[in-house]
């Protein structure tokens, strides 16, 4: 597998049709937003809130990789204008034709060349019933090789969309057919599994909403909304270029400075007073963890990636890491205009202080007139989900046993500019923030995946990343302990994703999880040790990896196989 991945990477670099253009050092501008006009493919430092001096020695530095932008050099007007997402209701046996292509997007008042599935942003919302199976005939019409990964679905391995593992890359003009299965109710999403840092960031993502078979699965609500949270990194010239041969922003991931909700900067919703809205929320950002706050309303957490919680719970915010999903019911009780915000404590690295930061993600207009059918009573009752508890019964005896495998999350860097390394060595950032978009953007921007090795290490064997090759049998219940080493060179919270299976976070830092939910992605905070109990129910060759796009492409992934009849090793 490792052999294949290595050669595939080399092949993709050779096949890449994009030629890096000249690097214009004069485009560097410490103020960021005040760039002059010029070729937008030239490297220029991302615009940030500059409240500190430039790190000495980096004044004219640019990434070691070449810059890449979609459709670079072509007139944006030749591409079709993207359209808002449409819902595709699919019955068992239906077929969807899905195409990835270049589109023109207007965000704010700016026009960008981006990507879209079926020219939509986000891609089509596939709505299907639990237990159904559908076919997706995919065609690639972007300039990069791609695949489609159906995130969270426990589908057949051949349709998992991992290049070099389950399928070859889909080159421009080629097609691939995926068979989708929906064994679990909930909200799922699809995205490329090649250069996500570019392709996903430029708009290749969409949701799958799997409806329950029985009506009482969720509480009754007045309305359902599917929210996709994202961010995009732009300046006055356009989208800040991506790394061509390898991603930039390899240390912290690429944080954007324009927040997008369902691909828009002005998401709005109008409801009547007293409405209960069920939001299905997905974070598709490369690196940003959102802390979503519904101002002027009360929120109740209902479900996450692959199931409902054992018990519903009222929350003041929704903390959602890249690739995670949450289902939240919100009661809008008072008339008025309310914001949906991302509220975090950002970091001023230079001063060594945290400070509050807010991003507007949307607006909800609550009318004066009361809703005709009130679901307040059901909202006020936090359900205990007996069906979830019953499903968990056969796993409870496994919760307290010794882990089968222990992983450590860490990193190595090589060939980074010395000022960056020296600065990191004396860093006083003892508690990593959720929001890394601080006053030292050049350090992050200048780090490429060629200089940073994010590492998943098997503590028992010393093997790392794709050299880890576990084997399990179908039906195995495997306990994996994951430790995010706080003393690594650059600790970060990592959203850890396991393909093709579902897992429980049974404990964190020795504290048992009192309210379980089936997950496919969970954030592992710096310094924490989390115990995952993985239900190896689905045969095939699978991956597990950090879902920060730049970390994945800096090596932070492992492989495992699940075979019929074998026991775990």
């Amino acid at each position, binding site marked *: 597998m490792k052999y294949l991945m290595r050669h595939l990477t080399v092949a993709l670099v050779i096949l890449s049709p994009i030629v890096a253009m000249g690097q214009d050092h004069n485009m560097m501008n410490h103020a960021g937003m005040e760039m002059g006009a010029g070729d937008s493919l030239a490297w220029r430092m991302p615009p940030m809130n500059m409240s500190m*001096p430039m*790190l*000495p*020695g980096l004044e004219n*530095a640019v990434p070691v990789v070449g810059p890449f932008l979609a459709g670079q050099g072509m007139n944006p007007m030749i591409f079709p204008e993207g359209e808002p997402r449409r819902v595709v209701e699919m019955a068992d046996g239906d077929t969807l034709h899905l195409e990835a292509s270049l589109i023109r997007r207007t965000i704010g008042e700016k026009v960008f060349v981006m990507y879209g599935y079926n020219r939509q942003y986000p891609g089509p919302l596939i709505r299907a019933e639990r237990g159904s199976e559908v076919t997706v005939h995919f065609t690639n019409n972007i300039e990069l090789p791609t695949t489609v990964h159906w995130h969270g679905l426990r589908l057949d391995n051949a349709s998992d969309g991992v290049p070099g593992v389950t399928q070859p890359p889909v080159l421009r003009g080629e097609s691939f057919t995926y068979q989708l299965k929906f064994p679990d109710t909930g909200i799922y999403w699809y995205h490329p599994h090649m250069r996500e840092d570019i392709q996903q960031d430029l708009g290749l993502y969409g949701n799958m909403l799997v409806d329950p078979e029985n009506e009482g699965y969720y509480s009754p609500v007045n309305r359902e909304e599917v929210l996709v949270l994202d961010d995009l990194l732009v300046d006055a010239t356009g989208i800040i270029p991506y790394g061509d041969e390898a991603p930039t922003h390899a240390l912290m991931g690429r944080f954007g400075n324009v927040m997008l909700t369902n691909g828009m900067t002005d998401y709005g919703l109008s409801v009547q007073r007293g409405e209960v809205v069920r939001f299905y929320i997905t974070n598709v950002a490369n690196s940003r963890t959102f802390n979503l706050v519904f101002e002027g309303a009360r929120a109740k957490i209902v479900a996450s990636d692959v199931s409902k*919680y054992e018990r519903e*719970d009222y*929350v*003041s*915010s929704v*903390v959602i890491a890249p690739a995670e999903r*949450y289902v939240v019911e919100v009661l809008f009780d008072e008339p008025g205009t309310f914001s949906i915000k991302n509220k975090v*404590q950002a970091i001023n*690295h*230079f*001063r*060594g202080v*945290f400070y*509050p930061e807010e991003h507007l993600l949307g607006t909800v207009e609550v009318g004066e007139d009361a809703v005709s059918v009130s679901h307040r009573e059901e909202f006020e009752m936090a359900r205990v989900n007996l069906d979830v508890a019953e499903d968990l019964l056969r796993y409870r005896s496994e919760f307290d046993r010794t882990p089968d495998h222990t992983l*450590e999350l*860490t*990193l*190595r*860097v*090589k*060939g*980074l*500019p*010395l000022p960056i390394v020296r*600065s990191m060595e*004396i860093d*006083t*950032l003892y*508690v990593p*923030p*959720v*929001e890394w978009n601080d006053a030292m953007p050049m350090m992050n921007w200048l780090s490429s995946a060629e200089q940073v*090795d994010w590492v998943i*290490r098997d*503590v028992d064997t*010393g093997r*790392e990343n794709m050299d880890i090759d576990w084997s399990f049998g179908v039906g195995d219940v495997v306990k994996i*302990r994951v*430790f995010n080493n706080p*003393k690594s*060179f650059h600790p970060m919270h990592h959203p850890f994703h396991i393909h093709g299976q579902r897992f429980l*976070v049974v404990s*964190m*830092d*020795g*504290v048992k999880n*009192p309210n379980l*939910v089936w997950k496919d992605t969970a*954030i*592992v*905070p710096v*310094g*924490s*040790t989390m*115990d995952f109990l993985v239900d190896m129910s689905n045969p095939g060759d699978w991956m597990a990896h950090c879902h920060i796009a730049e970390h994945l492409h800096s090596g932070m992934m492992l492989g495992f196989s699940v075979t019929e009849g074998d026991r775990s090793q």
Partner: protein
Amino acid sequence: MKRLLFLAAFLLTAGALTLPVSPSVGSPAGSTCAVGDGPPRYYAIDLVTTRRLPGARMARGKADVVFARSPFGLALSADGSYVYELLISIDNLAPARNGAYVAWVTTPQLDQRVRLGALDADHKVSGSVGWNKFLVVVTLEDDEAEGAQSWTGPVVVRGMSRSGLMHTQAGHGPFEAEPCAVYGY
């Protein structure tokens, strides 16, 4: 000869313009630190005596810091601050003859203070804190100070969250030439 000189000058110039880069830095293979299943030692707060009280001169303790229970794993408040659960324990502390030992958390500026609770007979107490940077103090109060906004008695032990070690980079390291005063320090 002229060509050689030109070439040498070119190479020297090119070398001077090349950004110096680091060798491999980071965690070498097989050097993992201990993986436990309890509170992370990394965030633990050492509580040290102020030596101000009889019976407390040899006191020492710690506050284990774990993320508060959250359906999201990572616990954040509505303003984005981390929410931690503190588990405080003090050793070598004589029982309070008059009054009670009470644990508090406060911001580094001391402008906000929250009572965590009175220490039990084993000199332990737990409570939650919703700040990214904070101090922990245990004071000797006349009573358990329930409902009190702040402490009034002497501080027995104190400690600082790991994030309290964060400070400005002005005036040292790569920013040695930056005057601290410009940045308000």
